[in-house]
């Protein structure tokens, strides 16, 4: 198989990048390991207020529809249930499904593999009934299955708080959302949970979870006080880390940026990586909000199109600077640290490569 652009991952970033490339008539293939496009949007019933201008405020699942509807009339090949498993010596990408392995010869690759949830280690964390908050959300919203009756949520952040409320709305008894930090800075987060009669426990850790074959009991240490709870569900919400394996296989260099989720590929202001044919976008380029996911995808796609000679310098320059401005406002609204870390990450790589930052980027640097 031959293509101009190969997009690895069919979540919001991959879909938005594909809309950009395919609408220019560029041959585009998306490979997606799941049975359907949409990535994590498939189960996100929460509203997203802070989205790029061309999107209305909407629920994640509706945004997924919007993206797929925009993409469907365009000439594009979607390979569902296909994974990237390696690179051939000549640079072609190795793809596999359940029955065969084959190469794809792509001029440009955009990696939009997203992020994976981090776990929390305590004795018993591998028992059935212990799962990530994302998994619990998938079960209630996509699969319509109750993951348990009595739940404990480990880790307090906006995502785990949102899922705690969704689980409760489905009839699950939430015994508490616990966090090991001594105090929570985000008062709104705590109030939002308490409004829904969900107990918030700070300075609390799990000592052990037990049960024969599945989790039945948990011992927590709540501010020095031990407590035994009868539960059948523990949801771990410890945040996200970028999924990097395809970038490792593609020989991309990495740097460390704690605020972007830890190890992230190095990239330029074009979202191009140290491998000249590879671009990265979305959570794989550093954990961000949904607006950031969509915008980085657009920036990467535009620059891939420029490298393919489809768009001219000036057009890309104008649109990029507009998109970067929008990215600054999106990411700053959610967490200014994310945007500052991203800009620092890019600046560092440009300096390392002795490649001057584009003039339009200087205005962004001054804004930080």
């Amino acid at each position, binding site marked *: 198989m031959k293509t101009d652009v190969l997009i690895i991952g069919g979540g919001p970033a991959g879909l938005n990048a594909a809309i950009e490339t395919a609408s220019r008539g560029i041959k585009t293939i998306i490979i997606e*390991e*799941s*049975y359907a496009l949409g990535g*994590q949007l498939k189960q996100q*019933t929460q509203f997203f207020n802070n989205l790029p201008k061309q999107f209305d405020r909407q*629920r994640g*699942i509706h945004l997924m529809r919007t993206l797929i509807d925009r993409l469907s009339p365009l000439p594009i090949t979607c390979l569902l*249930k296909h994974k990237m498993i390696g690179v*051939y010596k000549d640079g072609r990408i190795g793809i*596999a499904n*359940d*029955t*065969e*392995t*084959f*190469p794809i010869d792509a001029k440009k690759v955009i990696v939009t593999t997203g992020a*994976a*949830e981090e*776990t929390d280690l305590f004795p018993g964390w*591998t*028992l*059935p*009934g*212990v*799962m*990530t908050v*994302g*998994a619990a959300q*998938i*079960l*209630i*919203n*996509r*699969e*319509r*299955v*109750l*993951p348990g009756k009595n739940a404990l949520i480990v880790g307090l952040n906006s995502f785990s708080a949102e899922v705690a409320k*969704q689980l409760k*709305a*489905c*009839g699950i008894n939430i015994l508490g959302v616990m966090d090991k930090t001594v105090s929570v800075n985000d008062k709104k987060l705590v109030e939002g949970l308490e409004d829904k009669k969900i107990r918030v426990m700070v300075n609390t850790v799990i000592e052990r979870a037990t049960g024969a*074959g*599945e989790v039945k009991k948990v011992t927590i240490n709540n501010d020095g006080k031990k407590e035994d709870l009868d539960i059948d569900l523990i949801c771990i919400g410890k945040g996200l880390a970028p*999924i990097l394996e395809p970038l490792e296989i593609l020989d991309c260099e990495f740097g460390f940026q704690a605020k972007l989720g830890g190890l992230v590929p190095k990239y330029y202001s074009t979202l191009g990586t140290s491998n000249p044919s590879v671009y990265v976008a979305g959570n794989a380029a550093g954990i961000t909000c949904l607006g950031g996911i969509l915008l980085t995808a657009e920036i990467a796609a535009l620059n891939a199109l420029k490298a393919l000679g489809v768009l001219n310098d000036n057009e890309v320059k104008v649109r990029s600077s507009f998109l970067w401005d929008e990215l600054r406002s999106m990411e700053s609204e959610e967490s200014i640290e994310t945007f500052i870390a991203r800009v620092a990450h890019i600046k560092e790589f440009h300096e390392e490569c002795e490649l001057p930052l584009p003039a339009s980027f200087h205005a962004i640097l001054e804004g930080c």
Partner: protein
Amino acid sequence: MYIDHHPILENHGNDQISFFYDGTPLKARQGQTIAAALMMNNIRKFGISRKLRQSRGLFCASGRCCSCFVTVNGLEHVLSCTTLIEEGMEIKPNTGDPDVRGGIHEN
């Protein structure tokens, strides 16, 4: 347990399908993954880990953690969280060393 009335989303179609788990006939809804179909039937333990012989079930539900492998129609090592259930499927828990399949190689 199945959520008949979701607080936000419209109801799913009610198309039921039948499958077998370890020989027992069970029901699932069209469009569910194998993992969800099992959990709907209150099966949460999908197998035992190879080395430490510990119970395993759904953990990430995203095809990432490999905790939810099952055997599907004789094919071992299938991720139950990213594979849709189909009429008549025979699912078995993964309890030992898997017979990992090969592939057709070009090049």
